[in-house]
C-alpha cells in the first residue's frame, strides 16, 4: 500500500500507465489533456514524445504497440478527429502491447473551438471506452485498460473531461505491477497489413470481438456500479455527470457506468426494470441516451428538460428535475468582462496591428494568436481548426479572385504549422495559389503551456531533438517568396506585409520569428508616457500595460506590467513614449 496522493485526473492516468508497464507515450498537446503526457514523461524508465499531430501520435503509438510495448497516447477531443483515420483501422489490426488512448473532452468549451463527445468515436470505431468519474477511477481504469486492450486485442479509449482531467482528488496508488515482458513481435501480415484481402478477415474478427466486449461490459468484472435509492427515479450516467447527479439528486437510484462503449445493455435493462422512470444524464451529447434507447429501454425526460449543450452542474440538474435550486445574490449588472489578452511584449501583436492596417481578410488559426481576433486588434475573419488558416485563405482567394481589392492572409503559429499547416501549404503551392501566409514563430507551443515542437527542436524529456529550419522548409516546398522578419520591428513588419499584400498574384510566406515573452522572461526597463497628446494610437495595440486616464483621455503605462518591449514607442508619432 502506498500513501494517498492528490492527483489530477491527467496525473492519475499517467501514473497508472507507468505502473501498468507502459514504456512508450506519445501525444500532441491540447487542453485539457496536456499534463498527462507531461506527467508520464517524468516517470522512470519510460520514453515519451510530442508528435507533430494526433494522427502521427496514434500511428507512432500503434507501431510501438505492434512492436510489443504497452503504449499510452494522449490528445484532446478535437485531436481525436485528426487521429480518426488510424483509429478506425487500428480497431481492425488490434494491438500488440496494450494501447490506451486518453481522449480529453471539453464540454462547455473552456479552451476549445467546439464541444464534441468522444463516445461517438469509440462507438463508430468499435473500440472499448472507459469513463472515470474522479482521479482514483482514472488511475484504476487506465491501469486496467492496458490488460483489457491486450485481452480484447483492441485499442482502449479512456475518456476524460475537463472536470476529471483538471480536478485533483485523492488517489491511492498501488505498487507498480511487475512490468509485463514486451510481447515479441512476429510478422503477421493478415493482422497488420490492412489491404482488402486481409481487412475483410479482420473486420469479421472485429465484430466478434465487439460481442466479447459486450459480454464483459455486462459482467460483474466490469467497472459499473449501482447505487440503490428511491425506486421512482433511476438515472444512468458516467464521468463528471455522475458526481453532479449524486449531489443534485441524493435520493435517486443511480447506474453509474465505468464502461460506456459498448454499452452494458443487459445491466441497463435490469436497472431500468427496477425503477419507475429511467433518465439519462450526460453532458453536451445524446450518445448515452441514444444507446440506452437502442437497448430497448424507454428514456424519460425530466420535467424541465436537460440542457443540450454546455457543461452540466448540480444546479442545472436540480432545475431539470424540478428540484429547488439554491439562490445566490443577484448578479451585479454591467461588470466589465476580463477576457484573456496577448501578453505585454507578445511578438504576435504588431503583426496583427499591421495586417489590420492593410484591411486584409485574415484567416486565423488556433493558438495564443487567436486572441488577435479580439478588440482592439479585431484582426481575424475566420478561425476553425488547426491548419485551416492556410487552406481557408486559399479558398478565399478562389472565391474572391483578382477583382476584389482586399488582400487575403493566413496567420498560423509554428506548432500549428507543423501540426497540419504544412500539408495545407503544400496543397496551395501545388495548385499555384496566391496570397500571404504569416507564420508566427514564437519558438514554442505557447497556448498549451510552451511545449517543444519541430521548429524549436526541444523534446519532452529534455533530450536534444533536431530543430528544423522553418525558412528552408518553406523554400523547399517551392515557395519562392519567403522572408524571416523580426515582429518587434514595426517598420520591418510594415514593409514586409505591404510588399506581400501588394503582390496579389503570388504566394508570399512571411516568418515572424521572436520568442514568446513567457519563454525568456526578459524584462527590460519599462517605458512611460512623457507628453501625451491623447491621440490614442498606443491604445489600439491592446497591450494590457497601456491605459487611459478617464478624466484627461491621456495614456499611461503601468510600470509593473510593462516589460520594455518598445512596440508602443515605435507607434507613437509624437515621441511621447520614453524611458
Amino acid at each position, binding site marked *: 500500500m502506498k500513501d*494517498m496522493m*492528490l492527483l489530477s485526473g491527467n496525473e492519475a492516468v499517467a501514473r497508472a500507465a507507468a505502473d501498468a508497464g507502459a514504456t512508450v507515450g506519445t501525444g500532441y498537446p491540447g487542453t485539457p489533456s496536456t499534463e498527462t503526457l507531461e506527467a508520464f514523461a517524468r516517470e522512470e524508465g519510460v520514453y515519451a514524445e510530442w508528435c507533430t499531430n494526433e494522427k502521427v501520435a496514434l500511428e507512432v503509438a500503434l507501431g510501438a504497440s505492434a512492436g510489443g510495448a504497452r503504449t499510452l497516447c494522449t490528445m484532446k477531443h478535437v485531436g481525436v478527429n485528426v487521429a480518426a483515420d488510424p483509429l478506425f483501422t487500428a480497431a481492425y489490426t488490434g494491438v500488440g502491447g496494450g494501447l490506451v488512448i486518453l481522449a480529453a473532452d471539453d464540454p462547455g468549451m473552456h479552451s476549445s473551438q467546439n464541444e464534441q463527445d468522444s463516445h461517438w468515436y469509440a462507438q463508430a470505431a468499435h473500440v472499448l471506452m472507459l469513463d472515470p468519474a474522479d482521479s482514483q477511477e482514472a488511475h484504476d481504469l487506465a491501469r486496467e485498460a492496458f490488460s483489457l486492450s491486450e485481452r480484447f486485442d483492441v485499442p482502449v479509449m479512456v475518456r476524460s473531461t475537463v472536470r476529471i482531467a*483538471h480536478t485533483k482528488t*485523492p488517489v491511492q496508488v498501488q505498487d507498480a505491477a511487475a512490468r509485463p515482458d514486451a510481447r515479441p513481435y512476429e510478422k503477421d501480415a493478415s493482422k497488420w497489413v490492412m489491404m482488402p484481402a486481409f481487412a475483410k478477415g479482420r473486420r469479421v474478427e472485429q465484430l466478434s470481438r465487439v460481442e466479447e466486449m459486450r459480454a464483459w461490459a455486462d459482467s460483474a468484472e466490469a467497472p459499473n456500479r449501482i447505487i440503490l435509492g428511491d425506486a421512482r427515479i433511476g438515472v444512468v450516467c458516467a464521468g463528471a455527470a455522475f458526481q453532479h447527479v449524486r449531489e443534485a439528486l441524493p435520493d435517486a437510484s443511480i447506474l453509474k457506468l465505468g464502461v460506456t462503449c459498448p454499452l452494458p445493455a443487459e445491466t441497463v435493462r435490469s436497472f431500468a426494470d427496477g425503477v419507475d422512470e429511467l433518465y439519462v444524464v450526460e453532458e453536451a451529447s445524446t450518445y448515452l441516451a441514444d444507446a440506452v434507447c437502442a437497448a430497448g429501454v424507454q428514456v424519460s425526460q425530466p420535467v424541465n428538460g436537460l440542457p443540450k449543450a454546455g457543461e452540466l*452542474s448540480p*444546479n442545472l440538474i436540480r432545475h431539470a428535475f424540478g428540484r429547488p435550486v439554491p439562490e*445566490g445574490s*443577484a448578479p451585479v449588472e454591467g461588470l466589465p*468582462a476580463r*477576457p484573456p489578452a496577448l501578453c505585454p511584449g507578445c511578438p504576435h501583436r504588431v503583426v496583427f496591428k499591421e495586417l489590420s492596417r492593410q484591411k486584409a481578410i485574415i484567416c486565423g488559426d488556433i493558438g495564443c494568436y487567436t486572441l488577435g481576433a479580439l478588440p482592439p486588434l479585431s484582426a481575424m475573419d475566420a478561425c476553425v481548426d488547426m491548419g485551416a488558416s492556410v487552406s481557408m485563405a486559399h479558398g478565399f482567394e478562389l472565391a474572391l479572385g483578382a477583382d476584389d481589392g482586399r488582400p487575403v492572409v493566413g496567420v498560423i503559429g509554428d506548432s500549428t504549422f507543423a501540426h497540419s499547416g504544412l500539408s495545407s501549404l503544400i496543397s496551395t503551392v501545388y495548385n499555384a495559389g496566391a496570397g500571404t501566409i504569416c507564420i508566427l514563430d514564437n519558438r514554442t507551443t505557447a497556448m498549451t503551456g510552451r511545449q517543444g515542437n519541430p521548429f524549436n527542436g526541444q523534446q519532452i524529456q529534455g533530450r536534444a531533438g533536431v530543430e528544423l529550419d522553418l525558412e528552408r522548409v518553406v523554400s523547399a516546398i517551392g515557395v519562392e517568396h519567403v522572408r524571416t522578419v523580426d515582429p518587434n520591428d514595426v517598420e520591418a513588419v510594415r514593409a514586409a506585409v505591404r510588399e506581400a499584400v501588394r503582390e496579389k498574384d503570388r504566394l508570399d510566406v512571411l516568418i515572424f520569428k521572436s520568442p514568446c515573452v513567457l519563454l525568456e522572461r526578459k524584462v527590460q526597463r519599462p517605458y512611460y508616457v512623457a507628453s501625451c497628446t491623447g491621440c490614442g494610437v498606443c491604445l489600439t495595440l491592446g497591450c494590457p500595460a497601456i491605459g487611459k486616464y478617464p478624466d484627461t483621455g491621456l495614456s499611461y503605462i503601468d510600470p509593473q506590467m510593462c516589460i520594455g518591449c518598445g512596440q508602443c514607442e515605435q507607434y507613437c508619432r509624437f515621441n511621447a513614449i520614453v524611458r
Partner: protein
Amino acid sequence: MKKILLCGVGGQGTILAANILAEAALASGQEVKVSEIHGMAQRGGAVSTMIAVGHDVASMVIGEGEADIVIAFDKLEALRALPSLKRSGTLIVNDELIKPASVLTGKAQLPDDVDGLLFQADALVVPAEATAREAGSPKSANVVLLGAAADVLGLSAEMLQEAVRSCVPPKTVEANERAFQAGRRFAEEQGRDVR
C-alpha cells in the same frame, strides 16, 4: 461538506492557495476535490478554482448559491462571484482591483461604488498585499487571505499552517507563516471569526 471558491486574475497565486487548502483537508482525513480551469491563466484572464471539502464530496462544480466561502483575490472578481455565494456564506476579498483592459482603454466602466457593493455583500475586505509586506513576505497576499479565512474553513489552524509549510518554497516558509498569522489576526480583529 463545504464548497470554497477562489477567484482572481491569472498570476495572483490562487492555485497555491488551493493546494494549501487541499493539503490541509487531506491531512485531516477529509475528502477533497480541487477543480481548476486554466489554460489562459497567464494571459490576464479571470481564473477560478473550486474546492469541495468534507465528507461525501461529490460534484467539483460550484454553481449559483452553492459556495460556503468565496475568497476573491480581486474586488471586481469578488463582485462577479457574488451569485455563487450562499446567502449565509462568507466573502473574503483582497483590497485590490486590477482593471480589465476594456476599463484601461475607456471602453467600459467599473461600477461607481465597488466598495459600497462589497460592504452590502458583507465582505471582509483584507489589505492582503500591505499585510504581506508588513509580514516581510510581499508575495504572500494569497497566504494572508487564507489566514483571514482560517476560522471559517472548517479546518484546524494547525493543519492549515502545516500545509502552508509544506506547500510554499522552503526558503519562504517563515515569511509565509508570518503572513498566515497576520491574516488570521486581521480577521479576528475585525470580529469576523464568528461564522
